[in-house]
């Protein structure tokens, strides 16, 4: 996929350079780029939350609890990465939650119903994710159905299919040894016993690195940003925008497949009724991480920080035994504040 050219000299570079994510020339310039600043602010907020919860409760900073936080971030983090691609193109994907479930169910069909080896189950989850993403992409790019509607339809369609295929019962993976290891075991912990970080988190990290490379170092990434900044200009410059849009949704769908594997492995089952509502958590993480819903800007690092802010907040409030009604209120307030801080930051950076 990599063109090998310096991004700033290629034809689409004008659009890419207009976005805050074009590679800068000096460290100083990089540090003061708005996207970097948002990342720093988001990161500072995350640290502030962690410091606060550590002081508020002696149980918060214990290894077990930190491991639970990491574990609970993995699925939402991977879904949020999938959403980041789509949101940067100024699209939206409401189907990521039920698509994740659909992929988990397909892994269950291949592994439990058909008794195939583990590798094929993994491949099936990612393949069906990409396939569903491809369908969304075609609906949006070729049939010109607005992304909100197309993916809303896909959300329901996939939810229904998951229930039909599974016969509305959870599919268990008891016959596939090693399946739960995908999420639950800890390769890092085997090497360094004091760091029992579950594999799910390792996978989240690998997906994040791969997604970052895809976004920042490949032609796909450049077109993703370009589609979100000025699709018409890109099209007029001779780029097949429809094709690239389909590619973006396909990649995003494949990433949802990975999320499907993570959640199925964690629960040792594909739960067909689960999934709806998860898209909103993913979108919240993306937005807290500084990716604009109007497209053209965004980073994977920001999204990951956003996902961690959400899970640290949820876990911390639980550890403090804050009443559940208030947990929801506080989470809502934090999302609004995070996005408002981002707007203030944008406004002030526009003045410079």
């Amino acid at each position, binding site marked *: 996929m990599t063109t090998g050219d310096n991004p700033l000299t290629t034809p689409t570079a004008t659009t890419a350079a207009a976005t805050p994510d074009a590679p800068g020339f000096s460290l100083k310039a990089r540090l003061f780029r708005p996207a970097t600043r948002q990342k720093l*602010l988001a990161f500072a907020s995350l640290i*502030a939350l962690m410091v*606060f919860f550590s*002081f*508020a*409760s*002696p*149980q*918060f900073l*214990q290894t*077990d*609890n930190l491991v*639970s936080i990491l*574990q*609970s971030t993995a*699925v939402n983090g991977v879904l949020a990465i999938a959403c980041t691609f789509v949101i940067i193109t100024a699209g939206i994907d409401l189907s990521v939650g039920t698509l994740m479930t659909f992929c988990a169910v397909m892994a269950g069909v291949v592994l439990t119903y058909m008794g195939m080896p583990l590798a094929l189950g993994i491949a099936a989850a990612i393949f069906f994710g990409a396939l569903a993403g491809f369908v969304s992409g075609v609906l949006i790019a070729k049939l010109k159905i607005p992304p909100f509607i197309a993916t809303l339809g896909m959300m329901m369609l996939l939810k229904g299919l998951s*229930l039909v295929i599974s016969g*509305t*019962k*959870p599919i*268990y993976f*008891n016959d596939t040894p090693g399946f739960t290891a995908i999420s*639950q075991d800890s390769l890092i912990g085997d090497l360094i016993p004091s760091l029992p970080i579950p594999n799910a988190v390792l996978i989240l990290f690998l997906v994040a690195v791969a997604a970052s490379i895809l976004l920042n170092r490949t032609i796909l990434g450049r077109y993703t940003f370009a589609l979100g900044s000025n699709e018409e200009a890109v099209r007029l410059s001779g780029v097949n925008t429809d094709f690239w849009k389909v590619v973006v949704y396909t990649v995003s769908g494949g990433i949802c497949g990975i999320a499907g594997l993570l*959640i199925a492995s*964690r*629960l*040792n*089952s594909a*739960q*067909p*009724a*689960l*999934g*709806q*509502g998860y898209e909103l958590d993913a979108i919240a993480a993306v937005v807290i991480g500084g990716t604009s819903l109007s497209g053209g800007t965004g980073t994977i690092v920001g999204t990951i920080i956003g996902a961690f802010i959400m899970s640290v907040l*949820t*876990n911390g*409030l*639980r*550890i*403090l*035994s*804050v009443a*559940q009604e208030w947990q929801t209120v*506080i989470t809502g*307030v*934090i999302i609004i*504040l995070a996005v*408002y*801080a981002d707007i*203030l*930051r944008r406004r*002030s950076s526009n003045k410079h």
Partner: protein
Amino acid sequence: MIQRRAVTTTLGAALIGLSGFAQAQQAQEIYIPLVSKGFQHQFWQAVKSGAEQAAKDLKVKVSFEGPESESMVDKQIDMLSAALAKKPQAIGFAALDSQAAIPLLKKAQAAKIPVVAFDSGVDSDIPVTTTTTDNKAAAALAADKMAELIGKSGEVALVVHDQTSRTGVDRRDGFVNRIKSTYPNIKIVSVQYGGGDQLKSTEITKSILQASPNLKGIFGANEGSAIGVVNGVKEMKRNGKVVIIGYDSGKQQKNAIADGSMAGAITQNPVGMGYKTVEMAVKAIKGEKLPKVVDTGFFWYDKTNITDPKIAAVLYD
């Protein structure tokens, strides 16, 4: 930047307020968190109030949490893991999916934290006891009452909350199996699922009524489903012609029974379930021997006995 700082300060102040609260609650001695299958429904609120009553009587501290919907298995696992991180003396748990919770339950076992299962229980040896309603038997009683009220023949339908959860499956099967085994002249024309959502269940009921002009009765398998059935029958102007049987209580359902639009309903004993769960947990902490299952019971109630003190005590608004 100033505005941003103001935002941060407000946030900081709010969180410091919370931390004061947190410090206060750590002073308590015995702490028993309950991780439930739900939170927003009145049923779970009734379980919670029973648990809080027991906490007061037995001088322990409890907390009560559950996911927004019964499909959110992973969210419940996160809640359980946060509850364990607080190093409680015992824990109450109503599993959405037993298998998914096993690794954490093993951890609780290793840490010598007794687990009391409640509601649909946990499919494992780890819990020291389970406080529960026999949902199959309760739904079979609903089927008997339905048969009696429609003269043991005709068409009936079910509106169930969902097809994956234990209670959904048990209530459906309990009702359907009793009709099939005992009442050959009753035909089940439709079993539909409305997620326990009143509006969805209303729409489902209307379409069932549309499709079956001779329908004699509908069983709504939880609170939301039952209210939906009542609304649907009303909107289709078929009240009086269709016998409605509900499940659980809640203000709307009680009103429907009082005004005759619903024939009657099965009630569990959610307050008792919450109370027993905490009581059993305290006994487990003291090392007392516990029965494997504590049946919290169920009752049929209708217009005639709704004000009976024994029934009124287990109903909730």
